[in-house]
């Protein structure tokens, strides 16, 4: 079994209104040193295989086909 994490983030240059709202809220809570916040998504995926290379290839395909909208989002795969 292989555990992996896929992180999806908005591409640089794409406006992130939710990240902006969180950034302002952090400022309002007194965290004065926050330069920028970008919001993303995390997917923890368990694969029933022992083949690391195969798992990485499959996770990459999952990111491209469904987990990220590659028009506006980038994704990164981390295998445990």
């Amino acid at each position, binding site marked *: 079994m292989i555990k992996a994490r896929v992180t999806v983030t908005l591409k640089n240059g*794409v*406006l992130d*209104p*939710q990240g902006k*709202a969180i950034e302002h809220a952090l400022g309002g809570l007194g965290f004065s040193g926050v330069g920028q916040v970008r919001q993303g998504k995390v997917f923890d995926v368990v694969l029933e295989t022992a083949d690391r290379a195969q798992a990485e290839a499959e996770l990459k395909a999952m990111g491209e*086909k*469904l*987990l990220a*909208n590659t*028009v*506006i989002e980038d994704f990164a795969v981390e295998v445990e």
Partner: protein
Amino acid sequence: MKAAVILLPGLNRDRDMIAALTDIAGEPPLTIWQTETSIPDDIELIVIPGGFSYGDYLRCGAIAARMPVMKAVREKAENGTRVIGVCNGFQILVESGMLPGALMRNSSLKFVCREVELEIANNKTVFTSAYAQGQIIRCPVAHHDGNYFADAATLDLIEANGQVVLRYANGTNPNGSVNDIAGIVNKAGNVLGLMPHPENLITAAHGGTDGRALFESALGLVDA
């Protein structure tokens, strides 16, 4: 022209759309469930209504776009069948890659439900031929994720090709869409996606009929 309406779990504007098409075409559209893998040959207009398919999980329209019926819709579209996606239907069309760009959360982060003004930015499409170029019409909107985005190169391309068909007019952009874009067509011009709801402004009882001509054009009921 025979019309069909695609049904997916979580859509909630299907009844409005069926009522509108029935009123305009004089016969009810065929309804096609999401698990269907083919669409009858005699269907010439496919409509994907609005709502919250799959509860908007993951991204609006993302899961619906990958359902079996969308493969059939894509095949029909590639053969020239007209396709309209309204609101969530528009989100499904961009998620399926049938239209360029993406729809993001409204810049206000608020759900908007009100009337806007739309400019007919291109009346030389099969969907807008009954309107005048530059005509301003009224139309309701109701959405949380209608903020149209495309990268600079894509934007240049769709503007140059006349693929931007509808724009929010007179400062009524409700969602922060780039270039005030409210509706676009694909390059071939037979697939339209738009965030506003023209199906909710087609009889006097709705308070106006500004949306009627869009379906009359799409159904081939009017001469351009």
